[in-house]
């Protein structure tokens, strides 16, 4: 697909790198030549320096022939204008990043006139992901598939976990709410079979229908804490969206914000929340606000390093606290991994995922049997959605009788919109779609997952 991206910042870069890797033809437009050159050196894309709103530049970039035009600069108005221009020049679909809360209500009214296919709001999406993480405190990371119908979470196996030291078939005997699709141990990803034995330090990846995850963990015997009190450090847009959502669920929220004017504005719009003016990195402010009694602590300031340090401090004060750390600079992710930080959220990556899944959905039905392909567990594994055709050798055979290749697992079945967690006595039917999780690559049709006879 021919795609034009305006803005080579963090979000633009993340989107471009994912899409370029999937074989799309990407052109990037950015005002800042230095930033652009960095992107050009790292990715197989072309670039053009200049203002992505002007007609001259968009024409030079051939934006009119783009099947998708994405505006991801930090300026909402500019993004909307860019998209409008691109539409007028002939771009088929446009996506704009619009992040000011004031504009959320405006979008549905004008989206059609602007010809906008989708608006992405990294801060809001990040807030929604944090909400999901707080609903499932034991999850380290949550991803959704199949238009949000399937959830996948990462869970740290600790010495206290009920499955620790047990085999998969014993730990999750007779459970139909979800399944363990992968286990990461010492940086390597395994696809566990029934006989796989869990160890402390494993990261287990569970796939379950949306909404069933809670039940899955309850049945597995993992104590589920209910979050009742959340402290948020930093009063930016993410914090606003998050607080708004949490307050709806009657969770007590305290926001610590340094800037008095910002704090006042928040207080005006979130009357039920406790807004405190103070330094969110100061231990006395945190202690005063009751960090030792809070269930969750979200560090969402604009400075990654501050977020990392305060999260670590919070873990130190209260070992059981759920922390969520916002990290904007994706480069930091590998550096913080050994720190045991708990959940990490990067708004830019979430935006990238959103755009990428939009592109994949657009491509559906083209060519091979793969409906969608997700890179998961930091690219160490793939989740692939296949359509089950009439002729497939897998149809009407009980799953326990299928001779699957090593390192492949059938993670879930989508039967007429209903998501099932497959068990040995289930069988696939034509018209189903299935998600398989695998550490191998190169599956083009569903029957490829069968062992060669």
């Amino acid at each position, binding site marked *: 697909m021919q795609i034009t991206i305006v803005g080579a910042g963090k979000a633009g870069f993340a989107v471009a790198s994912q899409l370029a890797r999937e074989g799309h*033809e990407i*052109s990037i437009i950015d005002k800042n030549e230095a930033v652009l050159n960095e992107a050009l*050196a790292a*990715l*197989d894309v072309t670039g053009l320096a200049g203002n992505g709103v002007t007609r001259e530049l968009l024409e030079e970039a051939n934006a009119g022939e783009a099947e998708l035009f994405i505006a991801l600069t930090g300026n909402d108005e500019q993004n909307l204008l860019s998209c409008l221009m691109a539409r007028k020049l002939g771009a088929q679909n446009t996506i704009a990043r619009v992040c000011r809360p004031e504009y959320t209500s405006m979008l549905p009214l004008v989206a059609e006139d602007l010809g906008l296919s989708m608006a992405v709001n990294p801060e809001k999406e990040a807030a929604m992901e944090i909400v999901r993480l707080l609903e499932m405190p034991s999850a380290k990371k949550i991803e959704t598939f199949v238009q949000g119908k399937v959830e996948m979470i990462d869970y740290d196996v600790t010495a206290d976990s009920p499955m620790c030291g047990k085999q998969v078939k014993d730990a999750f005997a007779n459970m139909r709410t979800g399944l363990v699709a992968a286990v990461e141990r010492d940086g390597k990803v395994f696809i566990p079979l029934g006989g796989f034995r869990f160890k402390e330090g494993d990261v287990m990846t569970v796939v379950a229908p949306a909404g069933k995850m809670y039940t899955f963990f309850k049945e597995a015997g993992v104590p589920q804490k209910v979050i009742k009190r959340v402290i948020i450090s930093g009063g930016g847009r993410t914090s606003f969206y998050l607080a708004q959502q949490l307050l709806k669920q009657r969770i007590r929220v305290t926001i610590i914000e340094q800037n008095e004017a910002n704090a006042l504005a928040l207080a005006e719009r979130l009357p039920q929340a406790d807004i405190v003016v103070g330094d969110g990195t100061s231990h006395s402010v945190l202690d005063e606000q009751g960090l030792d009694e809070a269930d969750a602590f979200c560090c969402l300031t604009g400075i990654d390093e501050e977020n990392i340090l305060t999260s670590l401090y919070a873990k130190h004060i209260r070992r059981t606290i759920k922390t969520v750390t916002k990290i904007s600079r994706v480069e930091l992710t590998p550096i913080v991994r050994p720190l045991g930080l708990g959940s990490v959220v990067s708004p830019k990556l979430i935006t990238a995922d959103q755009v990428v899944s939009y592109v994949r959905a657009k491509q559906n039905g083209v060519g091979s049997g793969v409906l969608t392909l997700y890179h998961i567990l930091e690219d160490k594994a793939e989740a692939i959605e296949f359509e089950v055709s009439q002729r497939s050798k897998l149809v009407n055979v009980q799953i326990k009788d299928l001779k699957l290749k090593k390192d492949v697992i059938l993670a879930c079945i989508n039967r007429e919109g209903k998501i099932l967690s497959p068990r040995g006595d289930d069988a696939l039917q034509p018209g189903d779609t299935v998600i398989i999780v695998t550490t191998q690559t190169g599956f083009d049709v569903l029957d490829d997952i069968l062992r060669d006879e």
Partner: protein
Amino acid sequence: MNKRMTAYIVGVLLLAEAGLMLLPMAVALMCREWNCVYAYLLSSGFLAMVSYFLIRLRVETRTIYSREGLVAVALGWVVLSAGGALPFVFSGEIPSFVDAFFETVSGFTTTGASILTNVEALSRANLFWRSFTHWVGGMGVLVFVMMTQSLSSGGGDIHLMRSESTGPAVSKLVPRSRSTAKYLYGIYCMITLFEIVLLLVAGNDVFTALTLSFGTAGTGGFGILNSSVAAYNNATQIIITIFMALFGVNFGCYYLILTKRAKEAFRNEELRVYFGVMLAAITVITVNIAGLFENVWEALKHAAFQVSSIMTTTGFATADFNQWPELSRMVLVLVMIVGACAGSTGGGMKISRIIILCKEGYRQMKKSISPNRVEVVHFNGKRVPPELVSGIAGFLILYVLIFLGSLMLISLDGFDTTSNITGVVATLNNIGPGLEMVGPTGNYAAYSGFSKLVFIFNMLAGRLEILPLLAMLMPRTWRK
């Protein structure tokens, strides 16, 4: 530095070369030159074996940066030329390795300078291979390999493309390196094929049509006759004149024409200046040499052929321009240095560099009389970033230094100044023939082995536009 990855890329190059050698081998089989069949089989097998070991190296990370791109290309071209010299040695037709190496470097860098005193003595297979190296070297071997596979992870291929392609600011035609490589070679093959057909129609045999087309396409200049192109009929000479000029055009322009943006292509500043300079040079020389020929048309034909050949840095000749009046000789030496367009298969400084340098010089002049004046250099209607201007100025400095240094070194042999100067100009700009001793009827055979090595360095520096070669030779590139 990622040495394993660099070695891997060199290995892939050698494998490509081993494959390409099967073509001259087929020619040898068809012409029943059994000695050459054996030479090419042996060379190809040897290269395949070496590349097997390089490709099998365990490469931990496939990421490459600017440094690896420069070194891989420079090293790749040296190794490639050394490998390409093997069949000449094995077949016994150019027994000295330095001579064979010179000939192959001259081939791959599309120079066309030869150490052979009697070209016609070579076997068909070797003549074919000599001309074919022009064709391969013209567009680049790595770009050729890039069509089939991506060599590095991420966007690393652009570093290779930048080092191997010509011009000050190499950019891709389309977002993906692989598609860009395909377009470039697609256009290249199409125009070459067109020329082959026309040459066949003009009454040449298949072998002549092929070798002449390879020599034109790569802007190389190896002929298969001692008299270069002079012995062919008028139609052939005119076809070659036109196609030489066409291969000196930025391939980006052809891409624009292909994608129905011909207007943009013809508005291209470099293209206009290129044809402008060419026409001016042809006019001056035609007037200057009119007296030497029976009529003006004959003079025009020879002037056009020589200018087109020299300016695109091809190096074919239909007349011994060494015997021409001094003004014409000087004009030819000047267009040698100017060269063809960036992004073409031609060599030289490149029109775009000359344009930007002239504009920058003019800007500096204006600035000296009104120091507070603010002005930017424009090229093709766009601002040229200052780093690019200083990059080109730096290129010029290195170019001059290499020119002077080489001149000094080859003067050890004691030949006359004109031969020496034009010899260095003709190799550094990938033309081939110079004046006097190295003129169109002469060759480089008389120079010592050491001087030949200097010329080899010049040819490689010219084709790769200096920086890759210097980057490879700098110790700090290799330091940990």
